[in-house]
């Protein structure tokens, strides 16, 4: 399968990328290419111009930013997985990175690319939703920061405008928390049929607060607020698992029906909370 013809430009800086994106109708950013190139090959998308931001080395980093970590948009899954700062301060993100695709994919795919692509079955968007990450975007009018909950607007859809480049993702340092990311797949390396991120804070054996987010249970990541409430008031995992379905709208596809996904979500929320609380 060969993509339809397109023009190609290498951006040498973020500013250059923004400029190049404005030079043509239907220009698209090429990051690691592991979502875009499969779509190009299938000719699901036929952009006129690809702007390659893969050579902007200053977009690859993980930095300590006080109570947060700042992660450059072009940081590859492999580096998110193995970065010592991410492992220390945000282990759920490192762990989830290691479950994306396979080693070859993780050597090329990027955290910014994955989030900007906004596939409902991708791992990072829901994990970042549970983390209440912030997304830094650079466009023709300068820089702006958007909470991740507002960043993804639907299936493959975000607040990114045609000339915008996602430059950085900021995640909180978690401190002492229990966490879990569980992903159900039919085969190794598959997209998540359903995934669950759970992060809990405890004191004296009870859960004070929880953040739960679901992968592939709606067109965009679902923050399961009702489940969080159910868990924190009487510390009832079963009640939380039941409540996790509130606000979901799971798809039916070859991986599973909507009903099957609801079942999976309940089971995975229960297991993830068990794991997070005991970890």
């Amino acid at each position: 399968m060969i993509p339809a013809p397109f023009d190609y430009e290498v951006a040498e800086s973020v500013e250059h990328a923004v400029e190049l994106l404005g030079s043509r109708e239907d220009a698209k950013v090429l990051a690691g290419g592991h979502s875009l190139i499969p779509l190009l090959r299938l000719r699901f998308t036929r952009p006129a111009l690809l702007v390659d931001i893969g050579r902007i080395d200053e977009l690859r980093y993980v930095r300590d930013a006080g109570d947060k970590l700042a992660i450059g948009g072009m940081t590859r899954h492999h580096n998110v997985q193995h970065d010592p700062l991410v492992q220390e301060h945000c282990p759920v993100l490192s762990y989830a990175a290691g479950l994306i695709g396979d080693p070859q994919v993780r050597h090329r795919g990027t955290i910014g690319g994955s989030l900007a692509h906004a596939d409902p079955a991708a791992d990072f968007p829901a994990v970042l939703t549970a983390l209440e990450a912030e997304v830094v975007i650079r466009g023709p009018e300068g820089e702006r920061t958007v909470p991740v909950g507002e960043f993804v607007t639907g299936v493959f859809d975000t607040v990114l405008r045609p000339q915008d480049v996602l430059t950085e993702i900021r995640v909180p340092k978690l401190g002492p928390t229990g966490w879990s990311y569980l992903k159900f797949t039919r085969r190794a390396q598959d997209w998540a049929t359903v995934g669950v991120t759970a992060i809990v804070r405890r004191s004296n054996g009870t859960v004070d607060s929880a953040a739960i987010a679901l992968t592939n249970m709606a067109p965009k990541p679902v923050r399961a607020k009702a489940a969080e409430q159910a868990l924190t008031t009487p510390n009832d995992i079963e009640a939380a698992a039941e409540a996790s379905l509130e606000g979901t709208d799971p798809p039916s596809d070859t991986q599973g029906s909507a009903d099957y996904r609801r079942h999976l979500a309940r089971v995975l929320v229960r297991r993830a909370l068990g794991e997070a609380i005991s970890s």
Partner: protein
Amino acid sequence: MLALSFSLCRKELAVGQVSITVNGAEHILELEPRELLVYVLRERLGLTGTNVGCDTSSCGACTVLLDGESVKSCTLLGVQVDGHEITTIEGLATNGTMHPVQEAFHEQHGLQCGYCTPGFIMAAVSLLDETPNPSEEEIRHALEGNLCRCTGYQNIVRAVQAAAGVEV
């Protein structure tokens, strides 16, 4: 090299010049941006050891090393690797002596029809570079991106263990 720009020519196809080092030899090539690396290797350079299997980034038959790390060459554009180093299965042996991973696949019979083998070997070389002493579980996880449809993974895993110096 960094300031690639593509002028329109020949039937409105954009073509740009890139320099790619493959198995130690530098190649200057005129590429269309849409040319996938796997076809650059196979059709431009005649390196047909790298196979095309699924063409959907799933099977790993097209795995090569990009600056030493395993990647799927069906999911990279040739122009993206301008200025970089690629190693294919043809580049592993030195002076007619097989690479230890090749030798181990041979010794342990880590193949049946052999179609997936170059991809498995390149993935294993990358794994052992990152994790020189992997456990069996680590090997199985690290080979998730490669599919064998002949038989199973038993001898493939055994071959990687043997290459890592484990008694098998």
